[in-house]
């Protein structure tokens, strides 16, 4: 309820006021008497953990949900927003975290689809090109979306939103897919939009960003507003503890590896190309990971990280046995089950549909990754009968160890929030005490509390003498956990360098391509 009245006057009046918004789903109060004021021309942060009610609030503002109680005022006038179409008509635009784009269509076609008007596609393309150049977000309207990087896809969403000339733009976790340089560019654009008098509601869990960009922040916890403040007056730690409601453990790292410890994971001259035209070919990747160390692999999405992950995990088997060695055993031609039995464990990027089967229960999803691990004894006999009881009790142990929160007993994976499912998926591997762990995007879309827990668990595992590779687009995360850092660009991996000597600028340059061929994703 605490309103920072000093700011309201400054920017030319109030654009949107939501007061007393309550939304009840069954027994859950997703929003409980929430007040939010957005001024004209301000960048307003909406902060909160996963499940704090940010999405519900934003969906109500964007018309996809109706509040159980509460009023919305737009430019001083009471309004109801029955549908996203009505929100657009009012002047509210939204850029979603998960893009809704068709890979096989061009940029212009994708934009035309969402506008739903009868304007010829060429005109839309031209308008998009003009607008994108104006805002410094260059976009080729004739390019196929499937060929574009994640950053470029996000530009489409932003341009699509801007074409409707909105007064309020809602952005959901926009920088999670960008390089530092790309993010800087986005911030410039946002500041420019705010300068034009547009308001921006900025949802993020990256506190440093919020502090840099936003003049006001509303913090939600368990569906209630816990604070409204100026983030620039706060520290990242104080913002985080307001979000979580408790002090967040600061992730603590002590380097324990040394040049003498054993090489547990070794990748030698790994080159691989794929039939899929959207895959990035891997080019002569070499990497040694020693016991007790965490290597961070930074890079912009779509530069070969997933391909590298698949090649190391054995989902894509290489023709040469020498390409990957795990604990000294040549494993290049082994499948993922055999590599697991050597002591390796893997956490893929996508939780639903890759790391877990969405419709199956958590215990089934434990079996998914562990059925072939001989010492677990989840199956027995020639028929490999499943011991449901031991799988269940093990999955309960993981749920307890990792503090996985969920409703119901043994719910399907898709009933959990992203952070909780990720804790389970990481816990599922940690529970085996793997000697080698390869994780892709360990905390993607995960709330601050869960992310800290996962990172600490990775560090603890390294301190117990395992070798860990963390592939991440989140530079804060890379710096937080890594002993050495390498950068992946266009299917090549730079030589790992000690984290202490690395800077963001250097990583940014490496991301842009060591040989100067910036960003060109060759298939």
């Amino acid at each position: 309820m605490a309103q920072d009245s000093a700011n309201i006057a400054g920017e030319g009046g109030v654009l949107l006021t939501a007061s007393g918004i309550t939304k009840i789903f069954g027994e859950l109060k997703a929003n409980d008497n929430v007040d939010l004021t957005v001024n004209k021309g301000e960048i307003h942060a909406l902060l909160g953990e996963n499940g704090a009610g940010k999405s519900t609030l934003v969906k109500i503002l964007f018309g996809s949900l109706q509040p159980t109680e509460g009023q919305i005022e737009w430019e001083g006038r009471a309004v109801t927003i029955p549908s996203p179409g009505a929100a657009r008509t009012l002047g509210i635009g939204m850029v979603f975290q998960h893009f809704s784009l068709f890979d096989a269509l061009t940029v212009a076609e994708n934009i035309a689809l969402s506008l739903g008007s009868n304007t010829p596609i060429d005109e839309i393309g031209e308008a998009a090109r003009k607008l994108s150049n104006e805002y410094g977000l260059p976009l080729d309207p004739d390019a196929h979306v499937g060929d574009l990087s994640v950053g470029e896809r996000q530009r489409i969403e932003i341009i699509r939103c801007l074409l409707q000339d909105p007064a309020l733009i809602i952005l959901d976790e926009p920088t999670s897919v960008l390089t530092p340089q790309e993010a800087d560019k986005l911030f410039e654009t946002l500041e420019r939009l705010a300068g034009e008098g547009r308001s921006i509601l900025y949802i993020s869990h990256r506190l440093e960003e919020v502090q840099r960009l936003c003049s006001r922040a509303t913090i939600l916890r368990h569906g209630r507003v816990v604070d409204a403040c100026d983030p620039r007056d706060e520290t990242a730690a104080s913002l985080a503890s307001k979000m979580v409601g408790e002090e967040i453990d600061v992730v603590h790292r002590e380097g324990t590896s040394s040049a003498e410890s054993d090489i547990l994971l070794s990748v030698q001259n790994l080159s691989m190309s794929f039939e899929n035209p959207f895959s990035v070919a891997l080019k002569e990747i070499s990497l040694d990971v020693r016991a007790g160390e965490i290597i961070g692999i930074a890079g912009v999405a779509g530069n070969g990280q997933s391909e590298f992950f698949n090649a190391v995990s054995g989902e894509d088997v290489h023709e040469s046995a020498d390409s990957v060695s795990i604990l000294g055993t040549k494993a290049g031609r082994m499948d993922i089950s055999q590599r697991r039995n050597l002591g390796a464990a893997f956490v893929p990027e996508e939780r639903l549909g890759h790391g877990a089967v969405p419709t199956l229960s958590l215990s089934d999803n434990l079996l998914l990754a562990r059925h072939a691990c001989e010492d677990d004894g989840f199956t027995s006999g020639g028929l490999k009968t499943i011991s449901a009881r031991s799988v269940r009790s093990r999955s309960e142990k993981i749920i307890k160890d990792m503090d996985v929160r969920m409703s119901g007993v043994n719910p399907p994976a898709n009933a959990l929030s992203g952070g909780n499912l990720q804790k389970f998926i990481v816990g599922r591997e940690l529970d085996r005490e793997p000697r080698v762990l390869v994780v892709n995007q360990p905390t993607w879309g995960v709330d601050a509390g869960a992310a800290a827990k996962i990172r600490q668990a990775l560090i603890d595992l390294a301190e117990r003498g395992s070798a860990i590779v963390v592939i991440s687009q989140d530079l804060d995360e890379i710096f937080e956990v890594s002993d050495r850092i390498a950068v992946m660009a266009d299917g090549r991996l730079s030589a790992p360098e000690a984290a202490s000597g690395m800077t963001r600028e250097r990583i940014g340059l490496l991301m842009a391509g060591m040989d100067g061929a910036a960003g060109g994703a060759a298939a």
Partner: protein
Amino acid sequence: MIIQLEKRPQRSALLSILSPFIALGLTLVAGAIMFSLLGKNPFQALYTYFVQPLTDPWTREQIIIKATPLILIASGLAVCFRSSNWNIGAEGQYLIGGMFGAMIPVYFNEWSGFAVLPLILIMGMIGGALYAFIPAILKSRFGTNEILTSLMLVYVAQQLVDWLVRGPWRNPQGFGFPGTKEFNDSAVLPPLWESGDAHYGAAFAVVAVIVMWFVLSRTLKGFEVTVLGESPRAGRFAGFDSKKMTVFAFLVSGALAGLAGIAEVSGSAEKLDDKLSLGYGFAAIIVAFLGRLNPLGILAAGLILALSYIGGEEAQISMGISDRATRVFQGLLLFFVLASDTLIHYKIKLARRLPAAGGA
């Protein structure tokens, strides 16, 4: 007023049990309307369809006979459909199974002894499996759509069997009727009881149901089937191979369809003739889904569908209702089953029409 579907946060356990019964109820209502439109008394018609066959021992036995191939084929199809391999060609695998098994009595008609019958049955299973292997290998090697290939192979099998029983395999003493010589006693699947019509195929069906139920619900192989059917990418992460699964699923379902075919040939007709293709392979698709791809459910569903067949015959005899009505019934049943399944994940809401969305 408009009807809206609202996604449930979690699947409803109650409705996943109720859904087949809701479907059955809706089918009965729709059937009653259909009979009224035909000018028949709907209550009498439904009675003739669904109750009368149960009152007589002879028709009860006919139900078992009809249900046997349906259950055998459908429990194999459950493996295919659960793993998202759309085998629509069970009818062809059933025919080729019957044909393969018939090879032994056709070419070695005098051969008798204990070994003959098991050999015939195994040949039948091999035949069905081999025929199912064609769409499987086409899919796993070349990415061919298995729906098309498996369906088209049904017509090939029908022509092949038809040609054999009219040409090279025709009984010279058969007065020109299409069909092989009658099998000798060692090659005939014996009846379940003295002077009965129902043969041991029914026992095989029960065994198949139990085995498939165990495999699908209790073993790693069954888990693999479900995982690959739900999410091939997660299956690969688990170390499962979806190409091998395609071959496995087709081989299992082909073998069971082949067993159904040879059991029908050796147990009922006691020869291979041109009347083997009765559409069991297609009706089994309904049975598989009506039984929610669970072998135990398939056992019940097979019996219900067989009941509707026999009831249809009764209705044709006693009330003059065309046997086409039976097919319409089966179509309605499948339609309502699939429609009712929506209720497991969604709930129906009546809402006033929303104002037209701007810009759309």
